[in-house]
C-alpha cells in the first residue's frame, strides 16, 4: 500500500516560514492570500496484511518519529494498489 502522510504545525505554533511565503505572495500581487502554514509531506510503501494493520503501524510511526506531538498534527491517506485514495488518520486537537 502507498501511504501519503501530511504533517502540519499545530495552531498557535509560530510558522515564520509560512509568514515569509505569505509576504512573498503578497509582493507578487496575490493580496487575497492569508494564513499560509507550511508543513511536511511524506510518501511511503508499506507491506501490511490489512488496511487496519497498516493504519495502526502508520499511526505508531507518526507518534514515535515522524511528527512531534508537542508542535505538530498529522493525517494520512492510504492508497490501495488500485490508486483509489481513501482518507484516514487522526488529528489531535489541543
Amino acid at each position, binding site marked *: 500500500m502507498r501511504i501519503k502522510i501530511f504533517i502540519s504545525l499545530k495552531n498557535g505554533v*509560530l510558522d515564520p516560514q509560512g509568514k515569509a511565503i505569505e509576504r512573498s505572495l503578497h509582493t507578487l500581487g496575490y493580496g487575497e492570500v492569508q494564513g499560509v502554514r507550511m508543513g511536511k509531506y511524506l510518501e511511503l510503501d508499506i507491506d501490511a496484511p490489512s488496511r487496519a494493520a497498516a493504519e495502526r503501524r502508520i499511526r505508531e510511526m507518526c507518534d514515535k*518519529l515522524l511528527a*512531534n506531538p508537542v508542535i505538530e498534527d498529522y493525517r494520512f491517506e492510504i492508497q490501495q494498489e488500485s490508486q483509489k485514495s481513501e482518507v484516514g488518520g487522526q488529528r489531535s486537537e489541543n
Partner: protein
Amino acid sequence: MRWGVIVFPGSCDDQDVFNCLKREMGQKVKRLWHKDALAGQFDCLILPGGFSYGDYLRCGAMARFSPIMHGVVKFARSGGLVLGICNGFQILCEAGLLPGALVRNVGLQFVCQQVYLRVEETDTAFTRGIGKGQLLRLPIKHGEGCYYADALTLERLRKNRQILLRYVDPKGKPLPSVNPNGSLENIAGVCNEARNIFGLMPHPEDACSKLLGSEDGLRIFSSIAAHHGAGEKRHA
C-alpha cells in the same frame, strides 16, 4: 567527578565541552559514541551542540533513538544529572525528558551572537553556584532555538519554577527586543520537574576562558561540580 560527553554523528561541540571540562577545569571526562550502550559510572552526562543526523526531519528527532539514549533515559529517570546544550537541548525535548519543543527562529536566520542571560532559579545542581537574578554572558549559535510549549505546559513550568534562564538586556530585563529567536517569555533554558535534567540553547562551554571573551560558562559547570562535591560529603 566523572563526566560523560555523548557524541552523535553531526555533533560538533563535543570537543569544546571536553576541552572546557578537561583543560580549564581539570575534570575527568570521557567521550561516549552514540552507537555504544552507556557503560561505566558517570555523575553527569552532557549532550553537546551540533547537528546530529544533519537535523533531518526535526532537530534531535533521530538522535533520540540512538542506542546510547536507552542508557541516558534510564540514568536521567533515576536522578542522574543530564545537561543538554543547544542540539542537546533539542534532543532532550524530542526524547520527552524536557517539556516543550524548539522550533525555527522567528526571524528565520541562523543567529550567532553574544547574549545576556538572567539566572531565574538557583535551587538546581546547574545554577546553585550562581546568585538568583545574576547575569551571564554566553554565546548562542542556532537556527532552531525558539522555545515553544502550549499554555498548560508553560503554566506548569512557571508554577514549578522550571525556567532557569531567560534572554535579557544588559540591565537584566527580559525585553522582546533582546529575544534573539522568538522564544516564549524569552526562555533560554528549562529543567524537568525533578530538577536533574537541564537544557539550554546558549553555549557555556564556549565561554570558559578569558581568551574566549567570557568565563561565565564555567559557573554552570562549577555549580554541577560543587553540587556533586556536596553530595559526596553527605554520603561520606
